[in-house]
């Protein structure tokens, strides 16, 4: 028996291996976090290039580049890849890198399962992307895959789309369980829940959302699979089912899903703003309760995505009022961020620029969300470009900006080198201008009646669509600059101090830069600096 123990202990002392096998076999939370982040960036570029096809087609009215069927495949795959391949894995990557360091843990609670969660994703996305090359083309029914478009009228590759969703769900559920176990069980002695950094809090709540709704999504796609191949009647009224049932189940998953993408972003911004305002986060407790309230509300508002489907009027009213309630905890968060900056000694390094842009632009997206929450008004907005503008404002300058803010903020800790501040600021301004030029005009064409998911449009929308396309290409190509900055930072640069930012608080800043392969083999004793 003792020989076995020695063997394991011997193993445990290894540093990182060399070569590709380091990444395939790793159980280290930092390696896995890096894998997630690179995978996410790859998917971001892929999903972005599909958006290029969409925007290029919409540059002018008329059909110029692709046929409408292929256009539909592009909108579908763009949405799926960005949601499940870019934003969610990036957030999980950040959690992997940061949660153990922030709570003083040696690693994630279940390191092998952690690696399993990651390596499912490349397989799942290879299968999903390969559907584009299958007979009949890839999924062409929008990322929400409403029936009967996705059942009766879907291409044969829908089967592989369904299984890809299943694999992503398995990955997400295992990842979420791992994060919950880590946070609840691995905190350094003395770190109570209300002493955790806010990023950890938001991820704890996000993980609960994931475990609650990913199985529901699995249920929805399973019902589709059965309807397609085994003659069941879940979504077919001819057999006593109901296509609207699909929408209810999908959005019971879908609405919490949008908070899965934004709550960790709230966490990131709540870490960054205090650092560069050189003040404590205003209203820590209320931030925690607001996050929990948003998560709770996310379960009881799903049908606001379906106002035009023909619900009973009582349902419309209930879902409208419940949805508007979300503005309260969200408002608490926005005001807390503003109050944190109020009278702070602010400096505007790249992470702070992204964080402030997040607060402003996410709030715009939140306000347009309130507009679409109003039942009578939503009959006009529904399925128009206004909705496209709304959710791109919360997802791109929302989630994606927070991910970039996080990358700049923690890159010096991850690599040991400072990134190029001038280039970082350039990247920020190009992204900021690009994103607004791309998406702000979409509010106008949407209000004027341009429907979403079409390859052609009426002539009066031409100018704004042209502007939108220019902005989208500006934003897209700016991300190559981001790639360059990150690679440059990894390869060298001014050495970062342990603290990196003078106003930074948290356990991750108490260890060297770059963070050693195993950060806390024994729990840290001094928690006085555990959160800001």
């Amino acid at each position: 028996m003792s020989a076995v123990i020695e063997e394991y202990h011997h193993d445990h002392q290894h540093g990182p291996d060399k070569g590709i096998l380091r990444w395939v076999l790793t159980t280290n939370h930092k390696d896995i976090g890096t894998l997630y982040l690179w995978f996410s960036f790859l998917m971001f570029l892929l999903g972005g290039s599909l958006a290029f096809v969409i925007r290029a087609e919409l540059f002018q009215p008329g059909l110029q580049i692709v046929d409408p069927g292929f256009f539909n495949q592009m909108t579908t795959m763009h949405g799926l890849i960005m949601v499940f391949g870019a934003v969610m894995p990036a957030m999980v990557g950040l959690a992997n890198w940061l949660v153990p360091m922030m709570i003083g843990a040696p690693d994630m609670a279940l390191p092998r399962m952690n690696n399993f969660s990651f390596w499912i994703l490349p397989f799942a996305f290879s299968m999903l992307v390969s559907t584009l090359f299958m007979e009949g083309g890839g999924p062409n029914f929008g990322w929400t895959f409403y029936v009967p478009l996705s059942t009766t009228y879907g291409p044969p590759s829908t089967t592989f789309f369904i299984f890809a969703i299943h694999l992503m769900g398995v990955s997400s559920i295992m990842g979420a369980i791992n994060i919950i176990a880590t946070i609840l069980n691995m905190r350094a002695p003395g770190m109570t829940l209300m002493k955790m950094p806010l990023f950890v809090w938001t991820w704890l709540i996000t993980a609960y959302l994931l475990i609650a709704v990913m199985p529901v999504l699995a249920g929805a796609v399973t019902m589709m699979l059965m309807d397609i191949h085994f003659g069941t009647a879940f979504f077919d009224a001819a057999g006593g089912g109901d296509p609207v049932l699909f929408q209810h189940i999908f959005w019971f998953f879908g609405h919490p899903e949008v908070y899965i993408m934004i709550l960790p972003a709230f966490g990131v911004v709540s870490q960054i703003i205090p650092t560069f305002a050189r003040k404590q986060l205003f209203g820590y407790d209320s931030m925690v309760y607001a996050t929990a309230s948003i998560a709770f509300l996310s379960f009881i508002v799903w049908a606001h995505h379906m106002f035009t489907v023909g619900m009973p009027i009582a349902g419309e009213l209930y879902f409208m009022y419940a949805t508007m309630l979300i503005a309260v905890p969200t408002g608490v968060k926005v005001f807390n961020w503003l109050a944190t900056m109020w009278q702070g000694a602010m400096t505007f390094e790249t992470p702070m620029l992204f964080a402030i842009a997040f607060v402003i632009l996410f709030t715009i997206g939140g306000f347009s969300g309130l507009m679409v929450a109003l039942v009578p008004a939503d009959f006009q907005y529904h399925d128009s470009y206004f909705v496209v503008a709304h959710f791109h404002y919360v997802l791109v300058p929302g989630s994606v900006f927070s991910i970039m803010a996080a990358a700049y903020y923690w890159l010096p800790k991850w690599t040991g080198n400072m990134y190029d501040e001038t280039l970082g600021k350039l990247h920020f301004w190009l992204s900021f201008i690009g994103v607004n030029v791309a998406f702000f005009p979409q509010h106008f064409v949407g209000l004027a009646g341009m429907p979403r998911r079409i390859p052609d449009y009426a002539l009066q929308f031409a100018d704004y669509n042209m502007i939108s396309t220019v902005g989208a290409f500006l934003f897209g190509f700016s991300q190559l600059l981001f790639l360059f900055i990150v690679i440059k930072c990894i390869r060298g640069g001014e050495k970062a101090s342990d603290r990196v930012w003078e106003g930074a608080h948290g356990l991750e800043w108490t260890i060297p830069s770059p963070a050693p392969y195993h950060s806390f083999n024994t729990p840290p004793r001094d928690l006085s600096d555990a959160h800001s």
Partner: protein
Amino acid sequence: MATEQSYETYYVPHKSWLPIFASLGLFLTVYGGGHILNDMTAGEAHSSGTWILLAGGLITAVTLFSWFRKVIEEDHARLYSAQMNRTYVWSMWWFIFSEVMFFAAFFAALFYIRYYVVGWLGGEGERGPTDMLWPEYTPEWPMLNTPDPAKYPGAKEAMGPWGLPLINTIILVSSSVTVTFAHHGINENKRKKLINWLAVTVLLGVLFLAFQVYEYYHAYTAMGLTLNAGIYGTTFFMLTGFHGAHVTLGTIMLLVMLIRAMKGHFTADNCFGFEASVWYWHFVDVVWLGLFLFVYIMGS
């Protein structure tokens, strides 16, 4: 919150081949399965997916076996602390919660159809169009006549609760009791008691499954109750079928625990694998009670 001592011995495994093989196995399984389903629906007699599916299933099974064996070895090598045990406990509970949510989707579909859709199909409310499509249709539950009988032929009768389903209820509830006796066997350090009651539990699980297979056979051959029979058959088979799949998994878990118990594993303070299987078993038991109430009693 961890005590310091248990914290410092938290075991972090070094590199492992298990995750990549598990991912590959899962991928091949669904990729092969996808081809089989598509070929089946396209009317092809043979599918290229069969071998891919088998290879994937084999890789997954071998990997899972190796993974669990590795974990048990590490446990026997005393690499795990009380804190590690808490990680497993948390993980199992949240896994079971995710399963609850999976079933919730199917129960929700049943309730939604029963309480809203059936009435709407009959022209209730302001649902004119459906009423115009099938003016002959009269709403009922269980839905034996579907709106379009040519496409969904409907069942001759519904599955009543008081025959086999009641017997199965008694079997499954009893099995929850017998598994508790087995648990007492561990706590009282009586291995024979553990093994005997666990064996009884596994047998009850197998008996339940056998009865369910017979019930399905009877439904298909004598009652015209099939997957294709419309929404009643759909909800009946999908809910009871997924439950049956979970009973199968639970029985396999308990069977593995039985083999481990015979090999001398488990002590009163170190039996997480056994306890996790028991929790899972109680979970499938509770789901069955929901099924018995909502699918069998209120459904027929």
